[in-house]
């Protein structure tokens, strides 16, 4: 494709840098996304994890240019580049083309994203008309093909049914079919399996994994479920209080977490190892986006807090000998050196 030949090899598919999305409300300004930088390479899957209110979904909506304004505002200095092209401040027509042809998004609750009064098939056909200009019988044929590709059972029959006649898993398959209709190079999936049962979740994640490989499509998967991200994603970024606090390969981050928040989150997971014991608990509560703590935003809850943490906010610091980063003063060269000294 001409688009691929145009792009340079070192250019990421999606590159977000210093993204700040604030919401101006009557009760104050919520700094929902506050300096997020991330890269998604072609064909790669990046997981974005964190607890409610940490800014995962607002990050995704900012990429899709779907943050309502007002109350939302993407601050100057924020940059979202898709294949090298800046999207912050781009014309609405360009953004519509991006959403229609390059990036698709699926949401947690497929029932609220499907129109209840239209048949499933006609909704997929509509997407094909808008995004690929297909008409009539051709559009219908492609729609059935898409429904078959997402392994909807009896696609010809389902084509004529209404959303309420389908199960939750089938509805999510229809949403994925619609998202695929524009042949996106990036699929943003926001908690796509959270409303589904565990066996259905396994089916949908298996499907997304196959589609990603077959179509060479990159996936940005947003989830609160660390297990889902560990199984699905190559890399993972952990968010806390509007920022990314740790980033690296899923394997490394989940098995050797560096940031105290990631460590706390993993330790609080129940399961076989925790049977008969008390779970480790992160003290305190998650801060509000109207009032992020000064310095390191995790310092009031951190077991390793130092004087410096309350005063000065750490950047995402590279972890020596790896491709990883963590937003923690423990990773600063001085602290790391002091740690080596005490050990010696």
């Amino acid at each position: 494709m001409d688009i691929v030949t145009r792009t340079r090899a070192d250019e990421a598919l999606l590159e977000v840098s210093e993204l700040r999305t604030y919401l101006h409300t009557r009760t104050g300004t919520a700094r929902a996304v506050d300096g997020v930088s991330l890269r998604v390479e072609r064909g790669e899957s990046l997981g974005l994890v964190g607890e409610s209110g940490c800014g995962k979904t607002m990050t995704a909506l900012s990429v899709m240019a779907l943050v309502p304004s007002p109350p939302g505002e993407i601050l100057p200095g924020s940059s979202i580049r898709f294949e090298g092209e800046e999207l912050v401040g781009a014309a609405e027509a360009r953004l519509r083309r991006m959403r229609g042809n390059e990036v698709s998004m699926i949401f947690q609750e497929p029932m609220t994203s499907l129109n209840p009064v239209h048949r499933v098939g006609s909704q997929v056909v509509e997407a094909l008309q808008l995004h690929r200009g297909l008409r009539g019988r051709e559009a219908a044929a492609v729609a059935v093909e898409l429904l078959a590709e997402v392994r909807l059972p009896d696609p010809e029959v389902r084509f004529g049914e209404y959303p309420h006649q389908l199960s939750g898993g089938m509805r999510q398959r229809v949403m994925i079919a619609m998202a695929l209709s524009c042949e996106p190079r990036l699929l943003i999936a926001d908690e796509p399996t959270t409303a589904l049962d565990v066996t259905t979740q396994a089916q949908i994640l298996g499907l997304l994994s196959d589609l990603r490989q077959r179509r060479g499509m990159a996936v940005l998967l947003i989830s609160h479920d660390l297990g889902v991200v560990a199984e699905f994603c190559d890399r993972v970024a952990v968010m806390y209080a509007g920022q990314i606090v740790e980033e690296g390969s899923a394997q490394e981050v989940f098995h050797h977490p560096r940031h105290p928040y990631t460590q706390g989150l993993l330790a609080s997971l129940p399961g076989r190892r925790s049977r008969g014991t008390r779970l480790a608990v992160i003290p305190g509560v998650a801060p509000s986006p109207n009032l992020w703590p000064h310095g390191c935003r995790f310092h009031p809850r951190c077991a390793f807090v130092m004087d410096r943490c309350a005063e000065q906010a750490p950047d995402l610091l590279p972890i020596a000998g790896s491709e990883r980063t963590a937003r923690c003063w423990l990773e600063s060269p001085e602290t790391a050196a002091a740690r080596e000294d005490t050990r010696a």
Partner: protein
Amino acid sequence: MIAGEAEVLLEVMDLSMHFAARDGASGRVRGLVRAVDGISFTVGRGEALGLVGESGCGKSTTARSLLRLLEPTGGRVVFDGVDVLSMDARALRAFRGRAQIVFQDPFGSLNPRLTAGGMLEEVLQVHHLAGEATGRRRRAVELLELVGLRAEHAGRYPHEFSGGQRQRLGIARALSVEPEFIVLDEPVSALDVSVQAQILNLLSDLKADLGLAYLFIAHDLAVVEHLCDRVAVMYLGKIVEIGPAERLYRAPRHPYTKALLSAVPSLDRKSEPGYERTMLTGDPPSPMSPPSGCVFHPRCSHPKKDEECRRDMPDLEECGEGCFVACIKERSRLGGGA
């Protein structure tokens, strides 16, 4: 019986809850929804029994019918030797002083116009506990502190609490009558992982300190593995396997239990050598027209599945180590039950 080692507190025998499904427009009965279809289990004193299964399998209906929040259509429920289903209003009130329920959505189950303290005092008054107004006020504060809230929270309204605090409040309300048994219906499903850990710790502390028995309903298998002594697995209104949690998670027998456990995403699975997920196909059938024979047979991948499975409904039979399984092929593999 399908029981653990603890002395039996609650015994459920052949419990059924069938609903008439009516046509929306004409109101005519279209069929029967067998939401719960002849299930039996026990909960011992101080024991936590987990009830797992996917949406629509009948977990919550089971909980509501055994507390008589719904009137079951068949079977028996015996609580501490007394038949629950034949209790009159007076006996039922006494029963509810000993058996309580905590719901998933604490916000939906708390009165928005009552303060935390007011709500607890109301329960105490209804059940004639803690004496006069001052006694009730003192007891309400004790209850708040018991679940990790503070005295000053007594004057706050539900909307002023976070999700985790609201769930603590729901637990405080259940504890106010000093029950021996609490049904926990998805108590941590709406909470974030770090808040979930706090509530799970609270629940295990209360179980240890007060000797409470739980029926813990959850779709999250890891949560159940963490907290429960025994586990029952439901599919389409029936219990397909029940046994000690440690054993059931280590060596599941029923093909559905195997598929369910195998579907749980985990942090370690990618690194497990030779791991292959047992993937279920399709969706569960409708409880209005359950399949003949074993309800799981259309989706079952047991290597020995045959005509017998389509024809005969298996009963729960013992398969060693205190486990019971409802699978003809697993039973015959073990050379008959006990």
